[in-house]
C-alpha cells in the first residue's frame, strides 16, 4: 500500500513539475501562424462548446425576429463583426487568426441563439473574440444573435436595408 501511494503521488508531482517546467522553459508553441495539431483543435472546440452550453441562458426568443430587429442587428454586424466574420454573401477579410473565426455567410453558427448572445456578450477566452457586453446593450446583442442566425437566408428587404452602410 505504501508503494502504491508513493507511485500515485510521485506521478502527480512529476507531472505537475513537468508541466510547469515546460511552461517556464518556453517549450510551449505560441506562434499564431503555425497550425495546431488536430487533436488539440478538436478537443478545445469541444470543451469551449460544452462550456458555452453550460453557461449560456436557457431562454429562447419566443418568436422569430422581425425584419426591424434583423435590420438593427445587421447594421451593428456590418459595423463591428464583418471584419473577422465576413459579410452576408461575401468572403471574409483576409485575416489569419490562430483559431479561425467562423464565417457565418458560409457556415451556420453551431450555437443556439441564446448561446450566441452569451458569446457576444462575454467573448471567448484565448481567442480573437472580445467581450462586447460593455459596448452594446443586451437588446442590441440579441438583435446581433438573431441576425447571425439568419445570415444565410436574409429576407431581401433586410439585405437591402443594411447594404447602404457598406463602406
Amino acid at each position, binding site marked *: *500500500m*505504501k*508503494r*502504491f*501511494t*508513493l*507511485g*500515485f*503521488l*510521485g*506521478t*502527480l508531482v512529476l*507531472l505537475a513539475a513537468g508541466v*510547469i517546467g515546460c*511552461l*517556464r*522553459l*518556453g*517549450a*510551449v*508553441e*505560441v*506562434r*499564431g*501562424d*503555425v497550425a*495546431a495539431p488536430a487533436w488539440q483543435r478538436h*478537443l478545445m472546440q*469541444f*470543451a*469551449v462548446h*460544452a*462550456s*458555452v*452550453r*453550460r*453557461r449560456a441562458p436557457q431562454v429562447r426568443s419566443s418568436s422569430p425576429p422581425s425584419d426591424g430587429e434583423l435590420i438593427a442587428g445587421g447594421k451593428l454586424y456590418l459595423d463591428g463583426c464583418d471584419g473577422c466574420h465576413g459579410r452576408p454573401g461575401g468572403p471574409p477579410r*483576409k*485575416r*489569419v*487568426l*490562430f*483559431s479561425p473565426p467562423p464565417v457565418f455567410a458560409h457556415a451556420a453558427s453551431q450555437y443556439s441563439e441564446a448561446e450566441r448572445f452569451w458569446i457576444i*456578450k*462575454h*467573448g*471567448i*477566452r*484565448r*481567442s*480573437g*473574440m*472580445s*467581450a*462586447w*457586453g*460593455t*459596448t452594446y446593450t443586451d437588446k442590441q446583442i440579441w438583435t446581433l444573435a438573431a441576425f447571425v442566425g439568419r445570415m444565410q437566408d436574409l429576407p431581401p428587404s433586410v439585405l437591402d436595408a443594411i447594404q447602404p452602410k457598406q463602406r
Partner: protein
Amino acid sequence: MKHLLAGSLCALALLAITAAVYLDLGFMEVAADAQPAAWEAGLMPAAVRASVRRRAAAMQNPLPHADATLVAGGKLYMNDCVGCHGAPGHPSDYGVTFFPPAPQFAQSGSQYSDAELFWVAKHGIRMSGMYPQSPHYSDSDLWRLVAFIGRIGNLPPAVAKAIQPPASK
C-alpha cells in the same frame, strides 16, 4: 515495484478521467470578461514570455535610428494597431475586452525586446487576438513598427506631431 507502477497508472487514469469530465461538462472558463484565477494569471503570461524569448532570434533593428523611421512606423501603427493597442495618451477600450487583453503600449511599454516584438508581430500569438502580420507587412515595415512601439511612451515631439491626426477607425 508492481505496487509502485499500479499507483502511478492509477494517478494517470484518474487525471485523464478528471480532465475529460471537466472539459466535457463545460467547467472550463471561456468568458473573456471573467478574471483569470491567480495560478493562471501567474503561469500563463510567463509561459508566453518564455516561449517568445526562446524562439525569437537575437536581431538588431536593421533600420536607422531616425525620426523618419519612427514616423513611418507611427503611421502604420495609427492605421492598424491603434484599435487594440491604443494611441499615445489614449488607451484602447476595445483592446481590454479581449482575453488575454491587448497590451497598451503607450501606457506600459512592451516587455519584449525589439527582436522579440518583431517576432511576435510577424508570427502572432496563438490563443490570443494577436494574429500574424506577415501576410500584411513586409519585414521592413514590421521593423518600422517595432522601432515606433519601442519609443511610443517617449516620442520626439516632431514625430508625435507628424503622425497626427490618427486615421481613426
